[in-house]
């Protein structure tokens, strides 16, 4: 059989389709014909180095299938005796570069070893002339065995083309070429961000994950050279596709476990969010799950004031009884809850429902209060929906990314890598950040503004766009309102004044505006740098003005794309964890909603708004709030003004905490429920692009710990009354109820539809495919609203006593207050909080690099080691909040945005003194 028409070719006698741009390898793979390769990676550019994929083509010379385009009529043979002989010799050559027994034929081994077995390369025909080198085990997660490396460069390409980190290089040439980690000899000293992309690609086992071997129950005998070699092929007994439990990116993970222990976590290939990629936290930081410090049994505070173990019945009945007593004694508004953005939608939904219906109060809030509440409020006002209008896939299609107040390569690494790849492909990047973050080095323009001056900077950009006639007039005219007012508001401002406030030169502002106009419409991506400020809501509004002006919102490849902090902070807010609106952002007191909730919940919530978290803390201190249920959050460590928080919690008559570890918050509690962690329970998470994804358990929880939603259900039932109607056998039942409660957003969502990449809300009906882009035809609120926001300076004023600005934030290797990541080998990568400050300030204050510094604000003080860094500008400093020993939040004050109540973590006036 031969292919003679213009659309097909023949491979080994099989007729295959010819698609434009396809290589022979791709066409063969589609036709199910395997051509051996050692240097070709899925989705990566052809490397062409290993030459294993050589094929014979009629009328042509031998060609490498991986980089030779297939053309119509081609007749290709992939496995002739001649080719097999060549492959045999190639494998033998590779094997002979290794010391004896580094790799050997093994049908179950690595890809290289399987090929050795397949081609019968038993002995290195050309002799072993590799010399043995020591195993590099300097890195906590990755190990490098140079003996096994065949210099295929898949690791190098993965590092560059997936992560964009450029850690690896080839040193030397010819037979002396070897893989190096930049200029460093040890893996641990390299620029590696531990994403593990190289491990996934390595065909020989030269780069491996340390956890994979260390956890493997059967350990191989030590190699003669002193190396641990896993001769046993550890097979998982359980595998589950789930969702990562760290940040709001929501990567899909494939978890493999054996004997109740996580064996390895990989990204799911082809997943919409991460397409197989993960970061150090998602892939490796799972060791906390089997920590001996996990809470394994319910705890109740006894008469002597100590927490003692209790049975579930005891704990649930006690909790139910006390909640009912306090409600009946002090009224429903004396009780409040904080649902967790780390737990599932189902748990958050049930907990707010318990408080809104069984107890009857709107005192339900969540940690989004202290992160993206400003974003939700602001986008709610300007567009009608307080969520991302765009999706991550838009990053691949956009020509412009404006990144403000977000450090994605550390806080959202998989999206950070995706942004980096977009920029490397040619998208323009504008970074607006007081710090010179990694992405600033990739930016066309870095507007290094003074902390807290986002509003004047965005106004200045808008002013240039309008005055130079660079905005999308048709879009503004047809889809927006408030423009004329906005225009005259800006006309009254002087660009020089705005430039002076922000400390960004006018020319740079103009340059950025010109890029925005020329390369847009683009994606406006923001993080907590915008929202965690006293002018948080204003900052996001001013940012959204830019989206409206450039006609970015409601189109593919552009829009507002705030990066959410926690795995389920979006979902938690969706479930109704805010005191001023209901599940699905439905209005309090709306008669239609009231009646629907009454029919489903049995009782409608009160029409008055409840208290936000800071208000609940104040009420507790005033004695007006008697009980709190805090689900999965260490508020003592993470909320600002630590002493105030502790005082509030200690004033309560009843503090219920659902946790996986004995946190500082749990230590004050009256009841502690041990919770199942993300790897141990079923439910759903909603990521930052509104994507609801299915979370599935891979390992059992420790001891008698239980999933949050089950405990809440049981407390509800035990509270009798409305709770008696709570019949949920599984989280799926909770989702089905949610679909009825908020039909316009979740009407079409059910567990049956959540396999694979899940659904992006709104998804109003069972046949609706979900929504990638919001506001496509009209804005949810009708028209996009321009907001004229005037600058108001941060509340924490600099003074002679407190002359420097402190910005707080995170690093790559740890997650929030570190409850989980501090209990993993990540603690070996970063083992303390560090205060970054500029060399000028350090010299003036007499602070040496590495020396201890007292950080003092109007609200408190702490001590941290200093690092002199170019990432911060003179007059500013930066401190992370991952370690309780530092207690970073002792320094952060009670200032917050007046509307969203989001605390100002980003602009704190401090004094730095050497200790």
């Amino acid at each position, binding site marked *: 059989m031969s292919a003679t028409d213009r659309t097909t070719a023949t491979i080994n006698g099989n007729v295959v389709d010819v698609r434009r741009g396809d290589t022979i390898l791709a066409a063969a793979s589609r036709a199910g014909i395997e051509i051996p390769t050692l240097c070709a990676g899925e989705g990566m550019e052809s490397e062409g180095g290993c030459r294993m994929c050589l094929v014979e083509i009629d009328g042509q010379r031998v060609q*490498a299938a991986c980089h030779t*385009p297939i053309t119509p009529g081609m007749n290709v043979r992939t496995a002739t005796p001649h080719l097999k002989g060549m492959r045999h010799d190639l494998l033998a050559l590779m094997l002979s570069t290794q010391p004896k027994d580094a790799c050997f034929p093994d049908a179950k081994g690595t890809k290289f070893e399987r090929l050795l077995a397949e081609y019968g390369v038993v002995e290195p025909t050309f002799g072993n002339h590799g010399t043995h080198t020591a195993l590099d085990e300097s890195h906590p997660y990755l190990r490098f065995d140079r003996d096994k490396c065949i210099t295929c460069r898949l690791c190098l390409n993965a590092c560059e083309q997936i992560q964009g980190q450029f850690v690896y290089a080839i040193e030397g040439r*010819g*037979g002396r070429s070897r893989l190096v980690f930049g200029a460093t000899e040890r893996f641990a000293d390299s620029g590696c961000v531990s994403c593990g992309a190289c491990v996934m690609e390595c065909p020989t086992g030269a780069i491996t994950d340390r956890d994979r071997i260390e956890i493997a129950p059967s350990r191989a005998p030590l190699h003669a050279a002193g190396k641990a070699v896993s001769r046993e092929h550890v097979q998982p007994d359980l595998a589950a596709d789930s969702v990562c439990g760290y940040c709001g990116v929501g990567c899909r993970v494939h978890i493999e476990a054996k004997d109740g222990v996580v064996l390895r976590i990989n990204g799911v290939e082809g997943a919409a969010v991460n397409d197989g990629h993960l970061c150090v936290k998602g892939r490796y930081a799972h060791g906390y799950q089997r920590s001996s410090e996990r809470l394994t049994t319910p705890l109740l505070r006894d008469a002597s004031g100590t927490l003692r173990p209790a049975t579930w019945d005891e704990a649930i009945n006690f909790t139910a009884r006390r909640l009912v007593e306090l409600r009946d004694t002090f009224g429903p508004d004396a009780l409040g809850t904080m649902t967790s953005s780390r737990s599932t939608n189902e748990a958050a939904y049930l907990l707010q429902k318990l408080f809104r219906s069984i107890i009857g109060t709107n005192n339900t809030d969540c940690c989004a209060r202290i992160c993206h509440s400003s974003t939700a409020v602001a986008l709610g006002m300007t567009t009608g929906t307080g969520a991302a209008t765009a999706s991550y896939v838009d990053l691949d299609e956009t020509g412009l990314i404006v990144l403000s107040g977000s450090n994605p390569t550390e806080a959202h690494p998989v999206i950070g890598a995706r942004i980096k790849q977009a920029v490397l492909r040619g998208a323009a990047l504008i970074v607006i950040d007081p710090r010179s973050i990694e992405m600033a080095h990739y930016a066309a323009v870095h507007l290094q503004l003074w902390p807290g001056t986002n509003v004047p900077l965005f106004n200045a950009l808008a002013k240039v766009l309008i005055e130079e006639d660079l905005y999308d007039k048709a879009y503004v005219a047809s889809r927006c309102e408030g423009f004329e007012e906005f225009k005259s508001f800006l006309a009254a401002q002087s660009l020089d004044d705005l430039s002076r406030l922000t400390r960004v030169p006018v020319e740079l502002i103009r340059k950025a505006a010109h890029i925005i106009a020329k390369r847009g419409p683009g994606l406006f991506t923001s993080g907590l740098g915008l929202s965690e400020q006293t002018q948080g809501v204003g900052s996001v509004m001013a940012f959204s003005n830019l989206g409206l002006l450039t006609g970015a919102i409601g189109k593919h490849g552009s829009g507002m794309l705030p990066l959410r902090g926690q795995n389920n902070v979006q979902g938690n807010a969706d479930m109704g964890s805010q005191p001023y609106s209901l599940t699905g952002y439905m209005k309090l007191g709306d008669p239609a909603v009231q009646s629907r909730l009454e029919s489903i919940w049995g009782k409608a919530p009160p029409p008055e708004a409840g208290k936000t978290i800071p208000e609940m803390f104040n009420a507790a201190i005033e004695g007006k709030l008697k009980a709190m249920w805090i689900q999965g959050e260490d508020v003592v460590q993470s909320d600002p003004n630590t002493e105030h928080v502790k005082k509030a919690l200690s004033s309560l008559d009843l503090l219920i905490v659902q946790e996986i570890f004995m946190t500082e918050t749990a230590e004050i509690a009256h009841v502690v429920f041990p919770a199942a962690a993300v790897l141990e329970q079923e439910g759903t998470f909603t990521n930052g692009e509104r994507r609801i994804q299915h979370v599935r358990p891979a390992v059992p929880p420790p001891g008698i710990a239980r999933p949050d939603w089950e405990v809440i259900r049981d407390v509800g039932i035990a509270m009798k009354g409305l709770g008696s109607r709570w019949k949920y056998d599984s989280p799926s039942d909770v989702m089905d109820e949610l679909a009825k409660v908020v039909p316009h957003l979740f009407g079409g969502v059910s567990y049956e539809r959540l396999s694979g990449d899940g659904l992006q809300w709104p998804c109003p009906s069972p046949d609706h495919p979900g929504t990638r882009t919001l506001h496509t035809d009209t804005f949810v609120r009708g028209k996009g609203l321009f907001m004229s926001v005037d600058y108001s300076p941060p509340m924490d004023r600099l003074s002679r006593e407190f002359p420097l600005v402190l910005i707080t934030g995170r690093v790559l290797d740890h997650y929030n207050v570190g409850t989980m990541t501090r209990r993993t080998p990540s603690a070996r990568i970063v083992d303390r909080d560090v205060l970054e400050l500029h060399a000028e300030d350090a010299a003036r204050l007499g602070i040496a690099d590495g020396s201890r510094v007292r950080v003092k604000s109007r609200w408190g003080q702490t001590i941290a080691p200093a690092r002199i860094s170019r990432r911060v500008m003179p007059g500013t400093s930066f401190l992370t909040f991952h370690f309780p020993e530092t207690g970073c939040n002792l320094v952060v004050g009670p200032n917050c945005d007046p509307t969203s109540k989001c605390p100002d973590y980003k602009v704190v006036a401090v004094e730095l003194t050497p200790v």
Partner: protein
Amino acid sequence: MPHPSNLTQGILTKRIPCWPFADPKGRHIVGWDEYTATGGHVGLRKALALKPDEVTEEVKKSQLRGRGGAGFPCGLKWTFLPKVTIDASGKESNAGQRYLAVNADESEPCTFKDRLLMDFDPHLLLEGIAICCYACRIPTAYIFIRGEYHHQAKVLEKALAEAYAKGLFGKQGLLGGSMTGKGESFAVDCYVHRGAGAYICGEETGLLEALEGKRGWPRIKPPFPAIKGLFGKPTIINNVETLSHLPSIIENGADWFCKQGVTSTIGGPPSFGTKLMGVSGHVNRPGVYECELGIPLRTLVESKDYCQGMRGGKKFKGAIAGGISMGVLGPDQFDAEMDFDIGRKYNVLGLGTACPTVFDEDTDMVAVARNIARFFKHESCGQCTPCREGSGWLYQLMSRIEGGEAKTKDLDLALEVATSMGSMPGTTICGLADGNNWAIRTIINKFRDEFEKRVKPTFVPVKMTVGAGARG
């Protein structure tokens, strides 16, 4: 069959005294004034009066074949650049950024012909560059010169400064902003970029990588450089000698050029023009000679005009055809004609740089093979497995044979590896492994008895007097 030479003076070596036309003692660096006074820039002026496509057409008509080794037709290569559109009034669309990369990375062992041009007549090359840039609408040219050519780089840099000062290059347009056949002046910038000493950077795409500041690793083709080359832009890569031919071709016309050299006797494309041939090895007068293509090797070696016979009256044993990657000519191939047919007629890879290294009867061909293997092992870039690992292994094996430690089956293994390494182009990304294989394979095949003697236990050492590269 001796080749009758029509030449009465050098063409490329018009200003460089060479045997048989002049005594090399009179060599000196030709400056701008001397260059123009001796007929320089006539070709360029003539080219500028034409339209770019007319220049290309003339070069195509001359059938000038690349002098860097592969012999690809120069004019044809130029036509692979993206086409510009020309409207009814003759106005051209903007061709955009394109580059000319001048391959002056002359690193092939035994090859030293481009060096002569750069040593003494740099303005000839610069004129050639200007003609090529005009014909191909290229605004930027880089001369990528071998790192070891310190002196030549300095000569070029000085000549380039002179050319800028005199208005050949620079933003005012070629030759002081002369009006061109396009109806406007055409500006070209030219730079000298020095390599860092890797043979592989002479491979055209390795050269582009090195120019971009990266490791000189050859690129996967397609895309070809004429479509996506330096910095992702359309790029022409031409050898120094090729470009140096352009002024005389344009000045005298393609027909004049086609009168020199020979047509193919085997139905292939012709070998027109003169060629610089750098002869080294066991001859009485080694050096660079400008000859018409087609001159038999025997004539080149034995003629009193050229090498004046074998050194010490010894017998001819063999020769490296033209740069070691071309393989060797055997004792019975002394009459081989030095033209582009040589590959197919005498079982070598090709004419290469036409710089033969001649071996006399005392030469130890095993040592030659070992030395060649060592070179390729040293210069393999490490990108493709067969070359990276195979070249090292071949060197080990050749050393073993030379040392008398090898067995007969090792010889067959050597040929087998040579086969998987690149007997067929395509086995590796670039031609380096191919060159290694051709050299080793032709030596073993044409001198197999010498190798078989070495692998026998009754090994008797042979006196070793390798010519070029006895550093071994």
